[in-house]
């Protein structure tokens, strides 16, 4: 999760320069999509999908059994659910993040951001 955030902020800085907040606001007006909405569009759908995946996956597979056949017998069920949930969230956040990234236009006029 943290990795995705770092990637996102880094990308923002690169694309719009260090005066991120002011630029982003004006960009927000152009596209009528706020920063908040951009963040939400990455982390919220992935959260929903991760919740669903966690329910579906662990309805069929017992985390303690998965842990013991993988050689981690000390992992408890609650720990297994938690790790599973965040793994699903991370993976789907990466997917949402890439979708967000590829939706950007390829070339930005340099003069605008410098």
């Amino acid at each position, binding site marked *: 999760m943290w990795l995705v955030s770092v990637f996102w902020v880094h990308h923002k800085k690169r694309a719009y320069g260090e005066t*991120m*907040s002011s630029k*982003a*606001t004006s960009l*927000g007006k152009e596209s009528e999509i*706020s*920063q*908040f*909405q951009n*963040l*939400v569009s990455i982390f*919220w759908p992935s959260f*929903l999908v991760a919740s669903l995946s966690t*329910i579906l996956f662990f*309805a*069929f597979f*017992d985390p303690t059994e998965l842990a013991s056949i993988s050689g981690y017998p000390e992992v*408890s*069920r*609650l*720990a297994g*659910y*938690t790790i599973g949930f965040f793994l699903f969230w991370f993976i789907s956040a990466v997917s949402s993040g890439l979708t967000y990234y590829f939706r950007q236009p390829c070339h930005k006029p340099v003069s605008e951001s410098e």
Partner: protein
Amino acid sequence: MANDNPNSKAATKGSENSDLYKKREKIYPREVHGIFATMRNLAMVALLGIFYVLPWFDYDGHQAILFDLPARKFYIFGWTFWPQDFIYLTALLLIAAYALFFFTTLAGRLWCGYACPQTVWTEIFIWIERKFEGSRQKQIKLDKGPWNSERILRTGGKHAAWIIFSLFTGFTFVGWFTPIDSLYSDIMAGDISAWGIFWILFYALATYGFAGLMREQVCIYMCPYARFQSVMFDKDTLLIAYDEDRGEPRGARKKGIDPKEAGLGDCVNCGLCVQVCPTGIDIRNGLQYQCIGCAACIDVCDEVMEKVNQPKGLVKYTTEHALKGGKTHILRPRIVVYAALLMIITGALIFSIATRTPLELDIIRDRNVLYIENDEGLIENVYTLKVINMTNNDQTYRLSVSGLQGLEMEIRSDEITVETGGVAEVPVRLATDPENLKTASSVVNFTIESLTTEGLSLTESGRFLGPISR
């Protein structure tokens, strides 16, 4: 129409939240009284009551409703469900989805206005906020003012109360998924697992953030239902609307003046409908997707209409058809189809739970050989039976077979014992004289009967293979 949004005017200087948000104008919903406010409060008390109180009730020696994730079983009063019962959860989700479709088509955003956890928790957070920071006007003044001792005390107190309430909410939330009694005593003894603490804090943070800080932004930006609910609307769907023909042209007027003579509509432009709105919209601008259908504007406008001696209902629950002077049709194809589907799935779910046997029997044939002819000239088939005990206690079962004449059964032990929630694998060898086999494949019935619980039995059929009949 000049923009006369008193909420924004008052709040522009109030506070702007951090950069992550859209430059958001903080909304200070004004307190409202009336029939719909009462209904909303009743719904809030009922729903929060269920959430906070129900986990403490016991039934038959266990927590009445417990989705016991660490033990992988769900208790709902007398029933116990196992991961094998996943189909019921699917049915339940289908019912929830169709119920949402049905009620949305019929009555618009009832869910949003009265039952959504986001709405319900936001309301209780606003209630706490009012206890500390006072009415809307006082809150606005407080936010504009300096950080003096009063503001620190009031705002700090509010956040402290929110955090305590959120932590309690997180604790209760986890209490739906692990036994709340032992969770409580673990916390008191300082002996709670790290994962338990983690989920309590996670849910507490979500509650604090969603209901305390983000509020209407969750509905506007984050809620998928808010985005797609409009496709379920038709011209006969109940919605909250301002009667433009009656209200316009709006404007302030002196007491005792006949508005018609002054060329005015019924709307006195007091702006209260905007002040009470939890999402900060002006209902007079028409149907907006930000409207969560809470009906606060109806209550407050009715109050005003009463004061100025005009009939109530300038803002009211209505339909597009009714608004245009037509008739509202309640029974329409969509409604009928949704209702029918809802009844069919609900009926099927109730029927299958009522007739559910807490016992499962899987018959797996030996894959290596079709059949064996043994020393005595009998035809033998080998099976592995999987017996799953889905009751709350350990069970002992007895197996019997039927379907073929002269069937002999060889089994390790006459009695099969399976612990609660457990699975037993039982190898079984069946043999019969080839004379009894009329076809290459015959049906045999395995019946498993509980010796522990009277009347608990299950019959499943399997195949018995032999040589091609002579």
